[in-house]
């Protein structure tokens, strides 16, 4: 029996998500999800969202859009560990024709185009005939945090939960391309999945990477995520993994790889997912004549996961403040914490290192020595020298937000 996804939010108990999209820390934490209908209110205009657990292979998720599904990870999940569980990993589809049945017996991954020989692989071929590779990597939507853009911009109105970190296992894209033999003169490699648009005139979702990037040995085709097959909504059976790059390139239900001898001119590379060719894709609202390029590498970010905006502390006590951070396209160098709105910064202690593309835990001990309000801030710096800007970057598509995060707290 099919269930309705939506009940008017008014009929549900409302939780405050807190400024900065800090989510439901401590409110929903360990409680088993039993189909209770709940909602969240993100701290931006029209930020009310339902929490649903009616999507296949998924636990409680913030419903951004039912069809095609946009599901946000409730922020409390990020406090529970640096690997995001498969059933809480965010979901983002562009086109509504998503196969609901995938049969491994008939599924094939095809490699063709500017290659010496076209070739196709079964899933077993990929598992048995290639050396498995593994990498921990953050997958983040280009538009993660779009709801916080000021002025607001149209698009999926995510808070901060359109991201996740997983241990991906699969085969190297280079190894797969080598079997087909990339011919001289190849420029780009285009990836296509099983999803299609409802209307024949809707451009099929395809993304391309330069051939050198595709052959760097790091880009991979994943058949497992955190030790298990991918949930269908995260791309079962195969998903491209492009460490350090925004998730738009991580094509889901990947079944077709085409080597091109000219630049890909398809809609999703030339007219969508474009950013200003400026540092942090930053521009001024209304600015004209900005040169646009395809979105690409991620930038560093850090978040509080156990302290929400408006949190209250007792004078004399000490709190272990913690969160997660990642370096973007390079390793995390350090995480800086400020207890005085950015006047002074101290280095946070970093948790275990799962590689340069993974989330990493940070913690600081914060002593509440005197009464009064405080603004806590956190800032990540990566090994390539990039750091989070104090003020928010802005562009008309709502991409690449990575401003320093802050929470206002009080000691009483």
């Amino acid at each position, binding site marked *: 029996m099919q269930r*309705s996804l939506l009940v008017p939010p008014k009929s549900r108990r409302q939780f405050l998500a807190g400024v900065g999209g800090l989510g439901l820390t401590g409110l929903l934490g360990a409680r088993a999800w039993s189909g209770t209908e709940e909602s969240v209110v993100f701290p931006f205009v029209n930020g009310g969202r339902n929490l649903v657990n009616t999507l296949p292979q998924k636990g409680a998720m913030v419903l951004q*859009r039912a069809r095609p599904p946009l599901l946000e990870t409730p922020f409390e999940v990020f406090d529970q560990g640096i690997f995001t569980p498969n059933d809480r990993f965010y979901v983002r589809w562009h086109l509504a024709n998503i196969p609901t049945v995938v049969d*491994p017996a008939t599924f094939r991954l095809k490699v063709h185009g500017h290659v010496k020989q076209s070739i196709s692989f079964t899933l077993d071929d990929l598992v048995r005939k290639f050396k498995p590779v593994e990498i921990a990597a953050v997958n983040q939507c280009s538009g993660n945090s779009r709801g916080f853009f000021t002025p607001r911009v149209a698009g999926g109105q995510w808070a901060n939960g359109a991201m996740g970190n997983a241990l991906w296992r699969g085969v190297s894209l280079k190894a797969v391309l080598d079997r087909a033999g990339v011919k001289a003169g190849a420029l780009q490699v285009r990836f296509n999945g099983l999803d299609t648009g409802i*209307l024949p005139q809707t451009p099929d979702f395809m993304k391309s990477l330069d051939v050198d990037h595709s052959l760097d040995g790091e880009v991979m085709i994943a058949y497992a995520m955190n030790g298990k097959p991918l949930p269908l909504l995260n791309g079962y059976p195969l998903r491209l993994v492009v460490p350090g790059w925004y998730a738009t390139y991580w094509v889901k239900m990947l079944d077709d790889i085409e080597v091109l001898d000219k630049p890909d001119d398809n809609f999703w590379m030339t007219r969508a997912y474009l950013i200003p060719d400026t540092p942090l894709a930053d521009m001024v609202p209304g600015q004209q004549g900005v040169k646009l390029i395809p979105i690409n590498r991620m930038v560093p970010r850090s978040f509080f996961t156990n302290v929400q905006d408006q949190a209250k502390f007792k004078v004399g006590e000490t709190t272990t403040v913690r969160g997660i951070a990642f370096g973007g396209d390079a390793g995390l160098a350090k995480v800086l914490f400020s207890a005085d709105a950015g006047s002074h910064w101290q280095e946070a202690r970093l948790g275990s290192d799962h590689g340069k593309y993974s989330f990493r835990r940070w913690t600081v001990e914060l002593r509440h020595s005197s009464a009064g309000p405080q603004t806590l801030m956190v800032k990540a710096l990566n090994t390539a020298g990039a750091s989070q800007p104090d003020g928010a970057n802005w562009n008309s598509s709502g991409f690449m937000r990575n401003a320093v995060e802050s929470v206002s707290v009080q000691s009483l």
Partner: protein
Amino acid sequence: MLKEMRFMNTVSVLFCVALLSLVCAVAWWGSARADSASGKKDVASRQWAIVRVELPANDEPFPPGIGADIASSQCLICHSAGMVLTQPPLKKNEWRAEILKMRTAYGAPIPDDQVDGLSEYLKNINGRE
């Protein structure tokens, strides 16, 4: 009589032994296969299965109002009403720009004479002046 019983006993013992061997052989074969799979740590190969899911029905309607029929017949072709209802409040000309984007970029079959009515409706349900 006695001899016959002894013969039958022998037959049953032999039969039991044979059956037991067969069971053991099958069990060994099965475990060997499982070992070889787990030995290679092929997480996926042991779990490849037909995956069949059901996506929940999406029956969220557009709020009533003049133009709701256009939204229902056009917007819902490709996406649920939630996409519209979760947007920040937009001005009429901003909604118009979204409608034109849906037409030119994604091929939405919205006729010219419905664009203004739809823009007005979207502004009314989620807009600002």
